């Protein structure tokens, strides 16, 4: 912006130059076009904003109709009338928007015409509808958008074989999995920097892999199997990856993208943007794109107003819950679905269309979830008609849409569904009204998906009235943990879906009384769990072994906001993100609760472990390794010891160096100090004592006469 010139300045300048301002008509001054004398117009910005997107392309609203009959002038008007009739059915033709050129020599038409509509949408529609329209046998319309004309002209007349690019092997995007020390990576975002580190617990510090300033404009996200790191920008999203560093692999254009989501097999990327209307009468539009991650192609886009994409069957809730599209069918990325009003729309990724061309109709459906491994969805429909029609939870198989199992539930206020990570069990937390309808209590319906007929079991807590604070399945396991009870010191219970005595029944393993916890974090390998007291509990952590039913360690990461296990279940990261002002940073703990290292970072936003794809080892092989663990661990223990020896050696050297450096300073200072001692004595008027030790303590008795009083004392003899 040029500096602002005040009116007073102008007047002063005018006076200096001898110009009578009142005689100058400022409005009559015309600047040469394109010249602003360095003064930007205030209007410029507004003008740019109003640039209508539709007209950017120029002639988007014009179509060309070819293969018309060639007619002499007598029949011109008749043909024009026919064409006008056909095309005005589709949209409003602009005044003078129909032009049929005539050969000036023969006065006959040339067999084509141009039609201009008011909007590109109409033009597009006309092209779709009338391309291939049969006027009569020999006249089949060929309709094209005027904008496409150039594109078609560029196509060479002669066919040339497509140039086959020599195959260039891409980088090994899975390189990080082959790390010799089997370390895991994580990404952090702090301030303007985004950094990827190795977690190096042996060295007790992170090891930098890649750092970049302003890498993303809002957040970063790993793809589901950890191959890519996605960054989000105003123009769209991008994915990064590579063998040793991070290069940009693909860009996905999506202006003002807000949210992104990878499919579980990371083949597809869903991007979302919402465009708030500048004018309250307009609708709030949302745009969703589904990209193929490897080719960058848009596989399908969804556009509409925000209400359509708002979840919740009753339509009472506004705003969207992310992800809108939930992916099902395991890692094959076969199906994705979204919930709409009274419907669940299930799409399949081969054609990116609805399965059987229609959505699944479910009156009043509130919520649905996919099994993490199988193409099965669980739906929840609330009570209807004041309890006349009970609430139900049903399991539906895709693509057949058959109902596998259904359970009716009475006097339900809310349901929440939790799948176990292998898709073996489904727990439905059911909040029911008490008889008075004044309060609710909670129970669980447990589905055993993999067993015949999918048996359902009802579980009620020992104290039915306990509030449920948190629920979590053991990953890949058969146990779950529940935090229940009242807030200051709730209880935590562990249950198993199969124990030695009851293979087909749920049974309680243990209850821990009065824990300061409100969140549960199972190790991804199962067996261990972190009972965490976040928010109100200031970051209390308890590392618990569910096999042995004992606490391994307790710790505290003061004010911790986030907890995440590494994908192997060896380490836990706890972080304080910038929701708090102080103490930002993260701590890394071992699985058994030993604090390994802490890294303070101001303005800390994100901590994400890089996910790993599932292990390639078969279950038998894994079991074998577990059996012969001693044999394997010896090798690693030796390595660990080597490293720790090396470390202590390094540490010693470093200390020695620091000490020597310091000693050099001190001796220099001492020398200078002595050299200057003479001068210092002079400054002190000959008082020699420089050092503390040289002075001797003298006890000086000071007698002070406070008051002298003379008194005549009667003296009796």
């Amino acid at each position, binding site marked *: 912006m040029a500096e602002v010139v005040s009116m007073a300045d102008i007047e002063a300048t005018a006076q200096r130059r001898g110009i009578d301002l009142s005689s100058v008509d400022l409005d009559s001054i015309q600047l040469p076009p394109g010249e602003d004398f360095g003064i930007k117009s205030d209007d410029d910005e507004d003008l740019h904003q109003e640039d209508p997107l539709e007209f950017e392309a120029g002639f988007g609203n014009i179509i060309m109709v070819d293969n018309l009959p060639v007619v002499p002038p007598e029949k011109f008007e008749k043909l024009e009338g026919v064409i006008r009739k056909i095309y005005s059915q589709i949209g409003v033709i602009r005044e003078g928007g129909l032009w049929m050129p005539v050969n000036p020599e023969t006065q006959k038409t040339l067999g084509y015409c141009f039609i201009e509509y008011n909007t590109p949408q109409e033009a597009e529609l006309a092209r779709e509808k009338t391309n291939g329209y049969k006027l009569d046998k020999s006249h089949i319309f060929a309709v094209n958008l005027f904008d496409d004309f150039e594109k078609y002209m560029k196509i060479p007349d002669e066919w040339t074989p497509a140039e086959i690019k020599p195959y260039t092997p891409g980088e090994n995007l899975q390189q990080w999995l082959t790390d010799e020390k089997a370390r895991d990576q994580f990404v952090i975002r702090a301030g303007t920097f985004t950094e990827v580190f190795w977690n190096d617990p042996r060295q007790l510090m992170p090891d930098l892999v890649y750092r970049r300033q302003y890498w993303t404009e809002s957040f970063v996200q790993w793809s589901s199997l950890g191959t890519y790191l996605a960054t989000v920008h105003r123009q769209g999203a991008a994915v990064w990856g590579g063998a040793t560093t991070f290069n940009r692999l693909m860009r996905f254009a999506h202006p003002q993208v807000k949210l992104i989501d990878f499919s579980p097999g990371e083949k597809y990327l869903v991007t979302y943007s919402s465009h708030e209307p500048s004018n309250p009468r307009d609708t709030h539009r949302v745009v969703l794109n589904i990209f193929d991650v490897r080719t960058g192609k848009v596989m399908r886009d969804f556009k509409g107003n925000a209400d359509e994409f708002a979840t919740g069957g009753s339509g009472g809730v506004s705003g969207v819950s992310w992800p809108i599209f939930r992916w099902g069918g395991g890692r094959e990325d076969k199906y994705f679905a979204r919930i709409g009003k009274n419907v669940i729309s299930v799409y399949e990724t081969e054609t990116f269309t609805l399965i059987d061309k229609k959505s699944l109709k479910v009156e009043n459906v509130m919520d649905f979830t996919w099994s993490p491994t199988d193409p099965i969805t669980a739906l929840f429909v609330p009570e209807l008609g004041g309890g006349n029609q009970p609430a139900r939870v049903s399991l539906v198989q895709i693509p057949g849409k058959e109902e596998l199992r259904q359970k009716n539930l009475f006097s339900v206020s809310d349901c929440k569904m939790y799948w176990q990570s292998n898709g073996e069990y489904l727990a439905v937390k059911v909040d029911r009204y008490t008889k008075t309808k004044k309060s609710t209590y909670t129970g669980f319906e447990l589905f055993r998906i993999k067993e015949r007929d999918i048996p359902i079991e009802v579980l009620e807590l020992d104290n039915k009235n306990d509030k449920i604070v948190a629920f979590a399945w053991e990953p890949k396991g058969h146990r779950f943990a529940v935090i229940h009870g009242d807030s200051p010191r709730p209880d935590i219970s562990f249950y198993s879906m199969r124990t030695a005595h009851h293979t087909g029944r749920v049974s309680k393993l243990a209850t821990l009384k009065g824990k300061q916890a409100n969140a549960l974090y199972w190790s991804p390998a199962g067996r261990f769990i972190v009972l965490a007291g976040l928010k109100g509990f200031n970051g209390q952590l308890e590392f618990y072994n569910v096999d042995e039913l004992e606490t391994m360690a307790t710790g505290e990461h003061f*004010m911790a906001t986030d907890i995440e296990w590494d994908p192997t279940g060896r380490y836990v990261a706890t972080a304080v993100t910038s929701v708090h002002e102080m103490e930002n940073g993260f701590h890394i703990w071992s699985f058994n609760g030993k604090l390994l290292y802490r890294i303070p970072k101001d303005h800390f936003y994100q901590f994400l472990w890089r996910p790993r794809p599932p292990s390639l080892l078969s279950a038998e092989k894994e079991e074998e390794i577990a059996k012969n663990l001693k044999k394997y661990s010896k090798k690693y223990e030796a390595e660990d010891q080597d490293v720790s020896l090396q470390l202590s050696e390094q540490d010693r050297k470093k200390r020695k160096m*620091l000490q020597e450096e310091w000693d050099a*300073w001190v001796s220099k*200072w001492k020398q200078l*100090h002595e050299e*200057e001692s003479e001068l210092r004595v002079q*400054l002190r008027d000959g008082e020699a004592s420089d050092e*503390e030790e040289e002075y001797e303590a003298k006890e000086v008795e000071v007698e002070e006469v406070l008051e002298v009083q003379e008194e005549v004392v009667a003296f009796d003899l």
Partner: protein
Amino acid sequence: MRPILMKGHERPLTFLKYNREGDLLFSCAKDHTPTVWFADNGERLGTYRGHNGAVWCCDVSRDSTRLITGSADQTVKLWDVQTGVQLYSFNFDSPARAVDFSVGDKFAVITTDPFMGLPSTIQVKRIVRDPSQQTGESVLTIKGPQGRINRAVWGPLNKTIISAGEDAVIRIWDSETGQLLKESDKETGHQKTVTSLLKSADGSHFLTGSLDKSAKLWDSRTLTLIKTYVTERPVNACAISPLLDHVVLGGGQDASHVTTTDRRAGKFEAKFFHKILQEEIGGVKGHFGPINALAFNPDGRSFSSGGEDGYVRLHHFDPDYFNIKM
């Protein structure tokens, strides 16, 4: 040992100073009366009454007879330590911030705040033995750099003056001519306001604490950055142990934010660092507000801290402290 809690001030503490023998501790606070305490048992000996504003800084002469105090009431006063009698008052046009006696106690360096359009200054006054001969003239006036100068001290042999303040730059001036000799590097130096500056016992190096959550150790003669101690709190005060290779840093969340979070979030501990290895050794808890002042007893066996909470805490080290191995 259990710390001795000294409750004598009614407002936040601003500065603490031991005399050379380490038997007296002088404390300054935002209430108007500097106080002297027995450094051993925390008994209050007396106060120096006369200031009419917050007292920011003080210094005591080598023979413990004179005390000089700088105050927001735009005066710097000389006191008789023993009797508490005000001997002289230097008047300024803006609040006085830092005071420091030279080697030999014949001069004092005083800084004044930028105030009502006046820039900050560093002034040198001659201190005369006989208070009746004392005059208010400045021997030298340096029209300061931008912003408040939080500390100014004498360099070796009184040849230089070292100053630091709001602009985060540490400067060494010629004490004769007022010429700027050296400036700390913007890159490696502090990034935010320097709140405290303290010389080592022999004056060869000094420690600065800053709101950028670090403290730095510098060579007094060359202004070489020797060490950096990084902590999680803004540093309001720092001190160097005269006995062991330790430094102590104090500070905490800004006082205006304190009530918004838990006491532990404020980081009100005094943190000990190894001077050479730059590693944290431990912390001393106790204050329920940020620490504004720290001082080591010259014998290195005790230290005291003064907080925004108005308390002075006097800590005598346990024997364990002297056996810490790093």
